[in-house]
C-alpha cells in the first residue's frame, strides 16, 4: 500500500567536495515520500550523478546526512542495499553471462531462495519483454535491450526504492515508451522511484514531484504543474531553461576515478 505521507528518503545539508577542491554538491536538502515518483533534474555537471551515487554510498559524502527508509546510510549499508535497486548511467552487464545467469546470480547474492529467484526471473523477463533472449549472452543485446535488462536486474530483489540515473539515455522513442510504461507500472504497485534525467518530457510525463539542481544546489522544487505555474512556463523544458544556466565548460570530471597520469602531469 502506498502511503505518500512518510518520507522514505531524507537528505539534509548534503555536500561533496572532491580532492582538489571541486564542490560538486553544496549543502542540498530534500525529502522523497514513500511511493513517490521523484525527478531530479539538472544540466550536465550539475551534481545529479554525484548526489544519486552518494545516496547509495558509491561516492562518499563530505558532510550532511542521508536516511533511507528510516536507516542512517553509513551505519546500515547492507540493510539499505537490500531495500534499494539502482540502474546506473553505465549499463554494467557481465558480457560473458546470459541474462538468466546474471539474474540468478544476483538473486543468490541478495540471499533469496531458489523458488523466489525463479519466480522473479520469469516475472521480470516477461515485464521487460526479454524472455526469448534470456539464454543469450548479454553482449549480443542491442542498446535498448541492455537498458531494459539492466532495469529488470535492479528489480530482482524486489526493492522498495528504485534509483534510476538517466535510464533512457541513448534509446529510441519506442524503447523509451516501453521503459516509461514499466516504470509507471512499478510506481503504481507502490515502488518509490528516484529518477535523474536530461529529458524534460520524461520528467513531466512520469514524476509526481521534481527538483532542479544547478551548480551543486537545488534551484526549484514542486510538481510539474506547480513548477510551470511558478515559473510562468508552458512546459518543463521552459522551466528548466529559466532556472538553470549553461554549465558547458564547467562540467565535473569523474573525480572519483584514479588518474594514472597525475604524476607526469604534475611534473609538466
Amino acid at each position, binding site marked *: 500500500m502506498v502511503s505518500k505521507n512518510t518520507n522514505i528518503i531524507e537528505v539534509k545539508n548534503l555536500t561533496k567536495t572532491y580532492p582538489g577542491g571541486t564542490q560538486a554538491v553544496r549543502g542540498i536538502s530534500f525529502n522523497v515520500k514513500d511511493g513517490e515518483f521523484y525527478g531530479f533534474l539538472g544540466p550536465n555537471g550539475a551534481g545529479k550523478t554525484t548526489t544519486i551515487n552518494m545516496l*547509495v*554510498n*558509491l561516492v*562518499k559524502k563530505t558532510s550532511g546526512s542521508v536516511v533511507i527508509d528510516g536507516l542512517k546510510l553509513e551505519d546500515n*549499508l*547492507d*540493510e539499505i*542495499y*537490500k531495500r*534499494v535497486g*539502482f540502474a*546506473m*548511467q*553505465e*549499463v*554494467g*552487464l*557481465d*558480457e*560473458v*553471462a546470459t541474462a538468466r*545467469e546474471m539474474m540468478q*546470480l*544476483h538473486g*543468490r*547474492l*541478495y*540471499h533469496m531462495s531458489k523458488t523466489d529467484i525463479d519466480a522473479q526471473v520469469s516475472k521480470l523477463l516477461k515485464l521487460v519483454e526479454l524472455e526469448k533472449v534470456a539464454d543469450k549472452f548479454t553482449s549480443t543485446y542491442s542498446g535498448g535491450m541492455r537498458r531494459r535488462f539492466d532495469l529488470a*536486474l535492479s528489480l530482482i530483489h524486489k526493492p522498495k526504492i528504485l534509483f534510476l540515473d538517466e535510464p533512457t539515455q541513448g534509446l529510441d522513442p519506442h524503447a523509451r515508451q516501453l521503459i516509461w510504461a514499466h516504470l509507471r507500472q512499478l510506481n503504481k504497485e507502490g515502488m518509490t522511484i528516484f529518477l535523474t534525467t536530461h529529458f524534460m518530457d520524461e520528467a513531466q510525463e512520469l514524476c509526481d514531484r521534481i527538483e532542479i539542481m544547478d551548480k551543486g544546489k537545488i534551484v526549484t522544487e514542486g510538481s510539474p504543474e506547480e513548477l510551470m505555474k511558478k515559473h510562468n512556463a508552458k512546459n518543463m523544458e521552459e522551466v528548466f531553461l529559466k532556472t538553470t544556466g549553461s554549465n558547458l565548460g564547467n562540467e565535473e570530471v569523474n573525480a572519483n*576515478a*584514479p588518474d*594514472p597520469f597525475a604524476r607526469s602531469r604534475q611534473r609538466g
Partner: protein
Amino acid sequence: MNTFFSDWYYLSIRNIKLIWRPLMALLPPFFMPIFFFAVNSLSLSALAQVPGFPDVSYKDFIAPVAMFTAIFFSAGNAGIELVQDIQSGYFKKLIIMPINRLAIVLAKLTEVAVQALGQGLVMLILLLLWGVHFKTGFLGILTIFAILGIFAMAWSCISMIFALRTQNARLVQSMFILVFPLLYLTTSQAPKSLLPHTFGVITSYNPVTYIIEGIRTLTINGWGGPDVSYAFLAAGGMFVVFVTITMLSFHKALK
C-alpha cells in the same frame, strides 16, 4: 549456509565461467611455456653434461619452469578481468549489494586457483608425454600444484592491485613485462652453482627462485632438504602480503 561463504561460492562460480568464456582464451597461456620448453630442452640439452650440473636430463631440469610459466602468464588475467568489470560498471553493481567485500576478492582468487590447477594439469600431461619424470610421484605432483596454486593467487593479487589503483586495462596488461625479469633472474635455466656470482646473488633475492627450486626438488631430487619448505614460505609470504594490499586497494577504490 553462512552468507559470507555463500557469496564467495556464487561469485566463484561466476568467475570460474570466465575461464572458458571465450574458449579461445584458454590457449595463449600455453604457447609461451611449451615454446620455451621445447626450444630450451632441445637446444640446451648439452648443458646437462657440464660438470656441476645435477645428474638429470636438461628437460627434467627445466620441466618445473614450464609448469610454473603456464601459471605465471595466466594469473595476471585476474587484473584485466577486474578492469573490465570496473569499466563496464559491473563492479559497481557488486559493491552496492549486501555482500562481503572479502568474498569478492576471494572469489577472484578461487578462479585463479582453479585455472592454475587446470593449466597445471594440461602442462603435466604434455610433460609426461614428452618423457619428463617426476621423482616424488603423485604426492609430489600434488605438492607442486599446491605451491603453484598459492603463487598464482599471490601473483594475481598484484594484477588486481594494479587494476584497482589505475582502473586502466593497458597499464594492467603492461604488468606482463614483470614476468620476464622475475622468471629469468632465477635459477630457471641453470643451477645456482653454474651462475656468475653476481647473478647468483640477485637470484637469491628473488622469491620466484625459491618457488622454482621447490618444485624442481620435487621433480628431480625427492623430499629431502629444505627447498620445498622455502617454496611454501615464499609463495605463502607473497600471498599474505599481496592479499592484504589488494584488500587495502579495494577499500581505497571505494572511497
